[in-house]
């Protein structure tokens, strides 16, 4: 439990699944005074209203962060299917980096079910984990100033889909036309922490 100013606590957890479990638990039953919960790779940030009793909250969170077995894990919803045209600018390079070749990268990317670990970077952007470990590639040494919306990308242990055109340093392997984020839709974000994702090969782009 790390201090984070006078209106938040940063809970450090050993692993991503532990962070996800604590986030799910806090989302289902938010402690009094908590206004926002930000899950990340190894941590959960708990933001409170000004003047909240952080010492009391720390005690409560210490109890909630302890492993409670299967009780914390909700029944998984069906996986979201994302159809991808594997035409990314970095596909050939990722094929070389991984030794899988372009076709091997597509096969590995579509073979497993991914899980949204956390969100951030942009509304609707999910950091997806649980893919084939052979797909772990570094970020590009120099980020692109413009990555088109719908780009499917890899970096480190993560895969992700850019919800809108933005700068970005991930390796681009394909494009997907799903609407990741729409503020007028309920829910606005297709991917939330815990959402599972299956990528499928949509073949080549329509001419």
């Amino acid at each position, binding site marked *: 439990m790390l201090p984070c*100013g006078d209106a*938040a606590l*940063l809970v450090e957890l050993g692993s991503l699944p532990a962070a996800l479990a604590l986030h799910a638990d806090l989302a289902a039953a938010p402690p009094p005074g908590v206004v*926002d*919960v*930000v899950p990340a790779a190894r*941590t959960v940030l708990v*933001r409170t209203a000004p003047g909240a009793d952080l010492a009391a909250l720390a005690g409560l969170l210490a109890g909630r962060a302890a492993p409670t077995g299967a009780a914390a894990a909700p029944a998984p919803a069906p996986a979201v299917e994302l159809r991808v045209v594997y035409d990314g600018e970095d596909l050939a390079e990722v094929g070389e980096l991984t030794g899988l070749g372009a076709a091997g990268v597509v096969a590995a990317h579509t073979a497993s079910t991914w899980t949204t670990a*956390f969100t951030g970077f942009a509304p609707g952007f999910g950091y997806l984990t649980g893919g084939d470990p052979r797909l772990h590639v570094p970020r590009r040494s120099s980020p692109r100033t413009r990555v088109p919306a719908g780009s499917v990308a890899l970096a480190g242990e993560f895969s992700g889909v850019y919800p809108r055109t933005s700068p970005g340093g991930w390796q681009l392997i394909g494009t997907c036309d799903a609407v990741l984020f729409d503020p007028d839709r309920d829910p*606005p974000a297709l991917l939330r922490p815990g959402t599972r994702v299956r990528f499928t090969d949509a073949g080549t782009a329509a001419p």
Partner: protein
Amino acid sequence: MTRALEVLAAGPFTSVQDTGRPGLADMGVGPSGAADRGALLLVNRLLGNDPRAAALEATLGGLRLRARGAVAVAVTGAAGPLRCAGRDAWAGEVLHLRDGEELEVGLPEAGLRSYVGVRGGVDVRPVLGSRSTDVLSGLGPPPIAAGQVLPVGTAPAHWPQVDAVAVAPAAGEVRLRVLPGPRDDWFVPAALRELLTAAWTVTARSDRVGMRLAGPVLRRSRTEELPSEGVVRGALQVAADGSPALFLADHPLTGGYPVIAVVLDADVDRAAQARPGQVLRFARKR
């Protein structure tokens, strides 16, 4: 006739702001909202508005508005020369504009962000429950531009028992209280001392996302990559080159650089009023 404010000039940067979008982090949406929350609450209180009503946040003045229909307005936050219907006017009091009359918000003498409230609130379409422009995520209405016509909401039934309030962001050095952490242990011990003793100059690389500060290099003891973690408004995140940035309303939800200390929540409003060139000093909270 529908009451509205017509934008004649937008100044260097003006946006619509209210109390933001807290609680939506799990869909990747940041809190946003007024950079100086106290100034927004004050202008709404002066006008008898709901505290969550939207106002205009003008950076370094330059804003000119024309009333469509009779409206009551007020200005808080950074105070500079005001002209209301062709006459000099003051921040912190309710000003009445008749149809066609203009309000001019000049360059503040001190402070950075002026809040122009209107009785009934700026009634542009909310996005995810807020009318705030989030400059990082692009959510909310576009920044204010000349030619826009901003609808004004229904005026509340009552006036508050207050005619004028004191409004005075500080010139000169701004003292801010901090709590060390969460990642002060990623730095050499001298780094925290430097943070708490040096004069930190606000640079021009500052906006609603955060303010880059110039000062001594804050050296790290741990150089590995930090897995991204949640950050708060007021966090002092130290980039790879050793220079800190102070996060403001539109900060990213997570950051991949260590946060050496966090400015107390109540002090962030004053930080948000510091102009490029102004000096910040950090003191450890007792």
